[in-house]
C-alpha cells in the first residue's frame, strides 16, 4: 500500500507539470496586455522597462520555468517563513497578480476561508443527507419513499445550481426575508449573535450546494446498497437470526460505504468547481469569484495559479480515492 501510494505520488508530479504547461500555453496565447491599464503618457522606453520588470521579455519556457520555481519553491518557503518566523524567502520574487499588484498567494489566502466554509459545510451537509436517503431507498426499494428519493435526486441532479440559488433567493430572502441573499465576508464571529448571523448567511449557498451533492451521492449509495443487499453474506446473516437493523446497519452499510467513500473523495474537486457558480450567485468573495474577476481583468498569473490549484485538487483527491479504496477493501490489491 505504501509503495503504491509513493508510486502514485511520484506519478502525480509529471501529470501536474504537464497540466501546468497546458494551462500556461493556453494563457500564453491571451491577447491582453498587462500594461494596458497604465497611463498612455508613459514613454515607450519606460514601458519596455516595466515589461522587463514583469519578466515579459523572456521566452515562454523561461517564464514557465520561473512560474514553476516560484510556485513550488518560493511560495512554500514563504509559507514556512510565515509559520515559523524564518527568512528563507527573503529577496525572492513571488508570483505577483497583475490586477492587485500583490503576491497571488496572499490574496488566495485571504479568499480561501470563505470558500472552505461554504464548500466544506455544504459537502458535509450533502453527505449527511445523502447517506440516509440512499440507505432508506435501497432497503425499501420501489416504496413511496424510494420513489420520492429517486425523484428528488433526479431533480437535484438536473436543476442547475444557479437556478436553485436564484429561486431560493426569491423565496427565502425576497419574499420571506428569512436569510440574507448576499454573503457578508466582513462579518467577524465573536459572540452568539454574530455566529447565528453567520449561520443564516451561509444557509442558502450551503443548501444549494448540498442539494446538488446529495443528489449525486444518494444515487451511488442506493446502487451500492442494492448491490450488497443481494449478496450471500446478507442471507447468511439473516439466516443465523440477526435482526434486520444489525444486518443493514452493520454488515451491508459498511460494505456499501467502500465505493461511496471513493465517490465522495472524487467529488471534492468538482464541488470547488461548482462553487464558482454558487459564489457568483450569492456574491461570496471566495476563490471562484476571484477566478471570474481575474479572467475578466486579464490577470494571467492569478488565473494560472488558481487553475493550477484546482488541478492539484483533482489529482490529489483522485489519489486519495484510490488509496482509500485499497485501504478500505482488503480484496483490492494494487501490487
Amino acid at each position, binding site marked *: 500500500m505504501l509503495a503504491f501510494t509513493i508510486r502514485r505520488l511520484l506519478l502525480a508530479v509529471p*501529470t501536474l507539470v504537464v497540466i501546468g504547461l497546458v494551462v500556461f500555453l493556453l494563457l500564453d496565447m491571451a491577447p491582453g496586455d498587462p500594461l494596458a491599464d497604465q497611463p498612455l503618457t508613459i514613454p515607450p522606453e519606460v514601458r519596455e522597462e516595466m515589461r522587463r520588470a514583469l519578466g515579459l521579455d523572456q521566452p515562454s519556457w523561461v517564464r514557465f520555468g520561473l512560474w514553476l520555481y516560484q510556485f513550488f519553491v518560493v511560495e512554500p518557503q514563504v509559507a514556512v517563513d510565515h509559520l515559523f518566523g524564518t527568512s528563507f524567502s527573503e529577496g525572492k520574487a513571488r508570483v505577483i497578480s497583475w490586477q492587485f499588484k500583490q503576491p497571488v498567494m496572499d490574496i488566495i489566502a485571504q479568499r480561501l476561508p470563505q470558500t472552505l466554509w461554504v464548500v466544506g459545510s455544504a459537502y458535509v451537509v450533502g453527505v449527511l443527507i445523502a447517506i440516509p436517503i440512499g440507505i432508506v431507498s435501497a432497503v425499501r426499494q420501489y416504496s413511496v419513499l424510494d420513489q420520492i428519493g429517486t425523484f428528488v435526486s433526479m431533480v437535484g441532479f438536473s436543476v442547475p445550481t444557479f437556478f436553485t440559488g436564484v429561486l431560493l433567493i426569491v423565496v427565502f430572502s425576497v419574499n420571506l426575508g428569512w436569510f440574507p441573499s448576499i454573503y457578508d465576508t466582513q462579518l467577524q464571529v465573536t459572540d452568539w449573535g454574530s455566529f447565528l448571523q453567520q449561520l443564516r448567511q451561509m444557509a442558502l449557498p450551503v443548501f444549494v450546494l448540498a442539494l446538488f451533492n446529495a443528489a449525486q451521492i444518494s444515487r451511488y449509495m442506493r446502487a451500492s446498497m442494492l448491490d450488497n443487499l443481494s449478496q450471500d453474506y446478507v442471507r447468511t446473516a439473516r439466516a443465523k437470526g440477526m435482526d434486520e437493523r444489525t444486518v443493514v446497519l452493520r454488515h451491508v452499510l459498511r460494505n456499501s460505504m467502500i465505493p461511496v467513500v471513493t465517490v465522495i473523495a472524487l467529488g471534492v474537486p468538482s464541488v470547488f468547481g461548482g462553487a464558482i457558480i454558487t459564489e457568483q450567485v450569492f456574491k461570496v468573495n471566495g476563490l471562484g469569484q476571484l477566478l471570474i474577476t481575474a479572467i*475578466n481583468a486579464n490577470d494571467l498569473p492569478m488565473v494560472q495559479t488558481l487553475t493550477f490549484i484546482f488541478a492539484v485538487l483533482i489529482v490529489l483527491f483522485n489519489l486519495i480515492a484510490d488509496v482509500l479504496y485499497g485501504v478500505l477493501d482488503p480484496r483490492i490489491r494494487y501490487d
Partner: protein
Amino acid sequence: MTDETSAAPATGPASATQMPAPGPDTRLALAGQSPWRDVGRQFRSHKGAVLGLAFLILVTLFCAFGPWLWPVDPGDLDVRNKDLRPIYHALWDREARVAWAHPLGSDNLGRDLLASLIAGGRVSLAVGWTAMLLALVIGTGVGVLAGYFRRLDGTLMRLTDLVLALPLLPLLLVMMLLFRDSLRAAFGPETGIFLLIVAAIGVTSWMHTARIVRGDVLALKEREFVLAARSIGTPARRMIPRHILPNVMSPIMVSATLGLASAIITESALSFLGLGFPSDFPTWGKLLFDQTDRMADFPERVLWPGLAISLTVLSVNYIGDGLRDALDPRIRGR
C-alpha cells in the same frame, strides 16, 4: 423500476414462448425482429422516460416552430410596453400592468419574454445537440481506436486521464476569454461564439464516452464473431464500422443523453457567468443571468428561463435513465 404488469405481457418474447401453440412462423417472426423493438418496448414501460421524451420533443418543436407561432422579434424594443407582468398576473393582482401583446411580460427594455424564450431555446438546444454530437464523435473515436489498436491504447488513455485531471470549468472560462475576440472577428459575433462554445464544450466532455467505449471494444474483440470476421481477412477499416460500432451503440446512446444534459447546463452556466453569448443574443442561461438583478420585482423573468433549462435537462436525464434500463439485457424483457 416499473412493475411487471405494465411490461406488456402479451407481446414479450418470454410470454410468446409460453403460449400453448404459437406456431413456428410467429416464433420465427419474433426471432427475426430487430432487437431495437425490444428496447423500444422496455423504454415505453419506463414512465419517466416516456414523459421526458414527450417533453423534449415538445420543447424542440416549440423552439423550432415558435417563431412562426409567435412572430415577434426577440430583439424588438417596445419601450412603451416595458416592464409588463405576465398575463396570468391579472388573476390575483388587478393593478398589474399586463397586455395580451406580451403574454409572458416584457423586460426593462420592452423585449418580449416569450419571443426571447423561443429564441433562447433555439440557441441553447442547438448548442446542446451540436456539442453533444462533437463530444460523442471524439469520445467514440478515441474509445474505438484505443480499444481496437493496442499500439494506440496507452497513449490515448494517458491523454484521456490527463484531460480528466484538468479543471474543466476554469479552463472553459479561460478558453472563452482567449478565443472570443478572434473567432468573433473571423465568423461574426453569433456564429463565432456558437462555434467557440460548441468546440469548448465538445473537447472537454468526451472522456467518459471514450472510457466506456474502449472497455466495451476490448470485450468485443474477444468475441467469436469478431474472430470469425478476422479469420476471413476483414481489415480494420471494415471491421470497425460493420462489427464493432453497431455493438457499442447502446453505451454511446446512454452517454449521448448524459452529454446533451451536461452540454445544456454548461452552456447556460457559461452564459450565467457572463462569458457566453453577447448580451443582445438570448439563450436561456443569458436570460436568467440578465434578469437576476431584477428578480426581486420580476421573479417570472428568472423563473421561466430557469424552468426551461431545468425541465429540459430533467427530461433528458429521465430519457437517459430509461435508455439505460432498456438497453441493459439483464433487465430487459422483465
